[in-house]
C-alpha cells in the first residue's frame, strides 16, 4: 500500500524524475531517496570522493522543484555559522541610536527578526517552500556540531532563548554526505537512512558519461569506461571516480581523440590518476610504453 508523498510518488517515479534532470541512479539510490521523502527521515550518503553524493542532493532538489540550502561543514564550524547569530554590530548601532528610549524598550527591540542572521539550518527550517537541505561532508565537523544536528534533525525545531522555539513549517528533505574520514556517532546514524554509493558498473557508467558529455562518441565512451574499470581493478592509492571519468571524457573530446590507444591514454593519464605511484603502476600494468 503506497501512500502519496510530497516528494516522490514511488521508487520508479524517483528513478524517472532523477534521470530527467540528468542523474542516473540505481535501484538502491532511487528507493532510498523515495524513502527519505516518504518517511521524512534524513538521508546519510556515504561513499568514496567523486561518486556523486552531493550531486544526488542537487538532483533531488531539481527533480522535485525544491530549493537547495547548503551547509558546507568544516573543522571548527560552530553554532553561529550553522544555525543563527545575532547581528551585534547592528544591535550596537540600534542601542547608540536609541537616545532617551528606556532600556526595556530597546532590549525588546534588539532581539527581533531584524537583527537575526539566519544560517543554513535555521533558513531551511523557516522556509515555507519545499526545501532540500544539504549538509555536506558532515564527517569534517566536530562532535559538538553533531549534537546540534541531532536536535535539528530529529524534531526539526530550533530553540532561540530570546525568541522562543521555532518549529519547521514544512519539513525539509535533509541529505547528509560523508567521506567516512571518521565514524559518525551512533545517535546520528540511528536517525538517518543510510545509503552507500559506490563506483557504478560499466553499463551505468557508460550511460553517465554519454549523458554528461553528449559530444563523446559511443565507442570512445565504451573504451574510456573499460580502461577506468581496469584501473579500479588495480591496487591504487586513489581509484578514479565518476567525476574523474567525466573529466577524462571531456579532455579527450577537447583533444579530438577518436580512439583510445596507448599513446592517448599515456598523455592524458594525469586527468584520472593523481598520485605519481598510481601513474607508474598504471603505465606498467596497461603496457602503455614499449620497453
Amino acid at each position, binding site marked *: 500500500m*503506497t*501512500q502519496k508523498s510530497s516528494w516522490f510518488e514511488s521508487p520508479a517515479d524517483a528513478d524517472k524524475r532523477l534521470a530527467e534532470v540528468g542523474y542516473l541512479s540505481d535501484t538502491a539510490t532511487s528507493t*532510498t531517496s523515495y524513502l527519505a521523502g516518504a518517511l521524512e527521515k534524513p538521508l546519510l550518503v556515504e561513499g568514496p570522493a567523486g561518486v556523486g553524493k552531493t550531486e544526488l542532493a542537487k538532483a533531488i532538489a531539481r527533480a522535485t522543484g525544491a530549493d537547495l540550502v547548503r551547509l558546507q561543514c568544516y573543522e571548527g564550524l560552530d553554532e553561529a555559522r550553522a544555525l543563527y547569530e545575532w547581528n551585534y554590530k547592528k544591535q*550596537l548601532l540600534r542601542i547608540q541610536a536609541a537616545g532617551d528610549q528606556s532600556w526595556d524598550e530597546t532590549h525588546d527591540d534588539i532581539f527581533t527578526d531584524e537583527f537575526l542572521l539566519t544560517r543554513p539550518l535555521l533558513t531551511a527550517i523557516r522556509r515555507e517552500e519545499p526545501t532540500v537541505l544539504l549538509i555536506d561532508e558532515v564527517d569534517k565537523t566536530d562532535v559538538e556540531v553533531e549534537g546540534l544536528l541531532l536536535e535539528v534533525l530529529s524534531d526539526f525545531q530550533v530553540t532561540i532563548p530570546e525568541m522562543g522555539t521555532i518549529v519547521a513549517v514544512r519539513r525539509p528533505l535533509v541529505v547528509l554526505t560523508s567521506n567516512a574520514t571518521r565514524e559518525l556517532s*551512533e545517535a546520528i546514524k*540511528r536517525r538517518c537512512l543510510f545509503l*552507500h554509493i559506490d563506483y557504478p558498473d560499466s553499463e551505468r557508467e557508460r550511460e553517465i558519461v554519454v549523458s554528461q558529455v553528449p559530444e563523446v562518441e559511443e565507442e570512445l565512451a565504451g573504451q574510456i569506461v573499460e580502461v577506468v574499470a*581496469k584501473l579500479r581493478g588495480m591496487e*591504487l*592509492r586513489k581509484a578514479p571516480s565518476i567525476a574523474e571519468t567525466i573529466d577524462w571524457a571531456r579532455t579527450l573530446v577537447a583533444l579530438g581523440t577518436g580512439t583510445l590507444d596507448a599513446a592517448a591514454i599515456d598523455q592524458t593519464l594525469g586527468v584520472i590518476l593523481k598520485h605519481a605511484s598510481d601513474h607508474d603502476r598504471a603505465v606498467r600494468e596497461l603496457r602503455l610504453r614499449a620497453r
Partner: protein
Amino acid sequence: MTLLDRHIEFVEALRTAGLPVSLAEGLDAVRAIDVLGIEERETLRAAYAATLLKRQNHRTGFDQVFDLYFPLLIGDGYRIVPGDRHESEDPEDAERSGLSGSDDLVGQDGPQALADFREALTDALALGDPDVLALLAREAVQRFGLIRGRGPGEQRWSSYNVMNRVSPDELVDEVLQGMGLATDDDPAIRRLVEAQAQVFERLVDAEVRRRAAEVRGPQHVARHTIRPGIEQVDFTSARKADLELMRREIQPLARRLATRLSREQHARPRGPLDFRRTVRASMSSGGVPMETRHKPKRPGRTDLVVLCDVSGSVANFASFTLMLVFALREQFNRVRAFTFVDEIHEVTDRFETSNDPAQTMSELAASARYASLWGRTNYGRAFTRFADQHPDALTPKTNLLVLGDARSNHTDLALPVVKDLTYAARHSWWLNPEHARNWNTGDSAAREYGRLIPMVECRNLTQLGEFVHDLA
C-alpha cells in the same frame, strides 16, 4: 509463518552476525516496507539496507543474511512466484548460458556434463554477464555440489565439491587464450577475468548456503557460515582474498586514525594567550576582547623503533602493522623498522612515501631472507644481535614496539638483553597476534617476555587500529 515473524527473525539473525540493529531501526524498517510494499525483492533489500545497515563494512554480512531469509528461489530452481516456469527451461536463459534444455541434465554428473559445463563457464567468464554467472552457479551446485549418500530431507551441498570439480581458477588461462592473449600478456585484463572467477565462487557459496538454509533453517546457517567483516578477521587465519582486502583497508584506516589524532590534538588544552591575535580579533567588537586567541600547543612527538618477527606464521601481521605505522609516520618524529627471524635486518628504507602498498609488501617479503640465517625463529638471538648492532637505536625518547607471537622454538630467550632494551627505551610494548588463550602454550614464551614488556593481544585490524591510535 507471518511476514512479521520473518522480519523479527531476520533482525535477530543480523544481530547474531554482528550488526548492531536497534529497536528503533527495526521499526523504521517496518515503516519503510509498509510504504514500499513487498512485491520487488531488490526494493525490499534496499529498504532493509537503508534502515538497518549503517556501515558499509557490514554490507557483505547483511547481503548474506538477507539472501538466507528472503531467497530468490526455492528448491531446484523454481521461482517462489507460483505459475512461473522452471528457471532453466526458459529458452532464452538456456541459450545464453550455452546449455541445452536442462531437464535431462539436472542432477546428472559425468565427464561429459563436466566438460560441457566448464565450456559454458569459460564463455560466461569471458563475457562477464552476471545473470549467466548466477545461473551457472546454480547449475553447478545442483550437479556437482551434492554430497552423496544422504536421504531426502538430509541432503547437504558443498562448495568444496563444486570448486574441486569445476576449478574456475584453471579456466582463467583458457579464457585469456580464447581472447587471443598470452597468459601474462595483459595483467589488467587477467585481473578482470580473475575477478569474474571470484564472483562465480561467491555465487556458488551463496547458493550452497541457500540450499542448506532450506534443509536446516536459516538461523542455523546464519549462525555457522556468515563470516565476520574484514576488520574482525584474524591475521593468522586470513585467507589470500582476505589479505588483499586487508591491504586495501590499511590506507583508509590510516586516514581515519590521522583525522582522529589531529582532531584530538586540537581539542587538547590550549597554549598560552596569543596577545596580538586577540587584539586583532577585538577590532570587530569595538575593541572589547570578546574572544581570546591562543597559540597552538606544540605536540610532543616520539621516536619509534619497531622490531618485527617475519617468520612464516606471523609475517602477515608484521607487514600490516608496519604498513599502518608508516602510513601514520607524520604522527611520529622518526620511525625505524627492523625485521628478524634469527638475524636482525633494518627495513626502514623500504617504506618510501611514494611506493604503493602492494610493492612495499612484496619488497618486505623479499627482504625476509636477510633476516634469516638458519630459518628457525630465535627471539633470544635476534634481540642480542639487535643490541650489538644498533646500540644507538634506543634513546630515552624512543618507544619500542615488538611484533611477534613469542614462539622461540625453545631456544635461549636472552631475557637480560631484553631487560636492558626496555631500560634504554622510554616505553615498550609487545603486540601478539595470537588469541590470549593460546599464550604460554607449546613453545610460546609469552609469560617470560610479558613480565618485561607489556604484551597486548592484537588479532585483527580493529585491535591494531586502536593500539596504533593510543601509541601516537
